[in-house]
């Protein structure tokens, strides 16, 4: 082996800025930014745009930091799952120690800065979100209970509540229902994914519902949570941030979602394998649009209010 070949091997494993950025789970961060922004914009109190921008950024950094801490703790299982093998730690570009240091430093910075930029309630909610995701979900529940996704979903559901707290300094029925919307959406979203990425979680020893209780039970759980999700989504439409536009969107999407969940429930694995998991993939895709369109509809209601439209009146 020549010197040149040794050098090229080293180069390919050297972490660039993008590898450190990837520790922050940018795709998850985009959901955090969007839902937190909606929470902030639909609140009845206005916020200075610079304060709002800074707050959303610190919420995003806090969310990203918890992602880095998740990757630090889960490096062993990330190496075993195909979906996560290319992450910065399993691929050998970033060390576990670096991920831990970045996660802790950015967590502390994000919470302190959000407290200074917005208020203590928002900062406390962000700190709790990071704690919940890293300690309660990642370290404790993920490897222990098949309900990991249900409880872990709470961490991803906090951002709109934090955005609302940035504007109002408090918690209200509207922000709790926005939390509940993402919370109830998470299980059917992930279980639909788990139904067509067979084996990955089992190989890693993560007690996914599909592994511990079987796929039939998972299909039933998806249907059950879809019904709960519909109730929450409609209830949110009856609050001060809902309105006719949101309600129309919610009725259509929840009808489609329950139909999709029913189709998944009625199938068995043989039927699912025969058409390459068409219904499961379809429900997963719908779930992506579902959340985006619900929050988008809330945003439309808020943007109509200055013109005397939007809301219930």
């Amino acid at each position, binding site marked *: 082996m020549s010197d040149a070949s040794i050098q090229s091997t080293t180069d390919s494993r050297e*972490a*660039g*800025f*993008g590898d*450190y*950025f990837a520790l922050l789970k940018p795709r998850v961060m985009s959901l955090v930014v969007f839902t937190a922004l909606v929470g902030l914009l639909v609140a009845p109190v206005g916020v200075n745009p610079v304060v709002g921008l800074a707050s959303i950024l610190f919420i995003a950094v806090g969310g990203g930091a918890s992602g880095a801490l998740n990757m630090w703790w889960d490096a062993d299982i990330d190496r075993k799952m195909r979906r996560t093998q290319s992450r910065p730690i399993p691929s050998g570009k970033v060390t576990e120690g670096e991920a831990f240091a970045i996660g802790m430093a950015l967590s502390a910075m994000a919470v302190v800065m959000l407290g200074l*930029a917005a208020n203590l309630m928002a900062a406390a909610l962000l700190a709790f979100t990071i704690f919940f995701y890293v300690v309660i979900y990642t370290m404790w529940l993920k490897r222990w209970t098949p309900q990991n996704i249900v409880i872990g979903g709470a961490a991803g559901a906090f951002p709109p509540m934090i955005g609302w707290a940035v504007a109002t300094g408090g918690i209200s029925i509207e922000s709790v229902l926005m939390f509940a919307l993402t919370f109830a959406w998470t299980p059917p979203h992930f279980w639909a994914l788990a139904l067509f990425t067979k084996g990955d979680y089992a190989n890693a020893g993560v007690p996914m519902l599909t592994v511990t209780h079987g796929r039939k039970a998972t299909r039933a759980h998806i249907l059950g949570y879809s019904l709960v999700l519909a109730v929450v989504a409609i209830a949110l439409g009856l609050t001060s941030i809902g309105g006719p536009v949101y309600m129309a969107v919610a009725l259509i999407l929840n009808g489609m979602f329950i139909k999709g969940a029913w189709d998944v429930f009625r199938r068995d694995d043989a039927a699912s394998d025969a058409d390459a998991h068409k219904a499961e993939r379809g429900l997963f895709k719908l779930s992506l649009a579902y959340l985006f369109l619900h929050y988008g509809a809330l945003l439309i209601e808020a943007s109509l209010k200055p013109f005397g439209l939007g809301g219930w009146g």
Partner: protein
Amino acid sequence: MAIKVDHELHKRRLSRNIGVGVALILFVGLVYGLTVAKVSDLYKPAPATSEVSE
């Protein structure tokens, strides 16, 4: 002083160093903007309702 070529380590870490530099500059700019916004809000005239209540 003789002009030296960049050390190979610096070349490899260029993207990382530029990224960190840009992030720090943006952070400083954000804190500056935040300070201006917060201080400006302090000097905003109070809403009419509070004047009446006083």
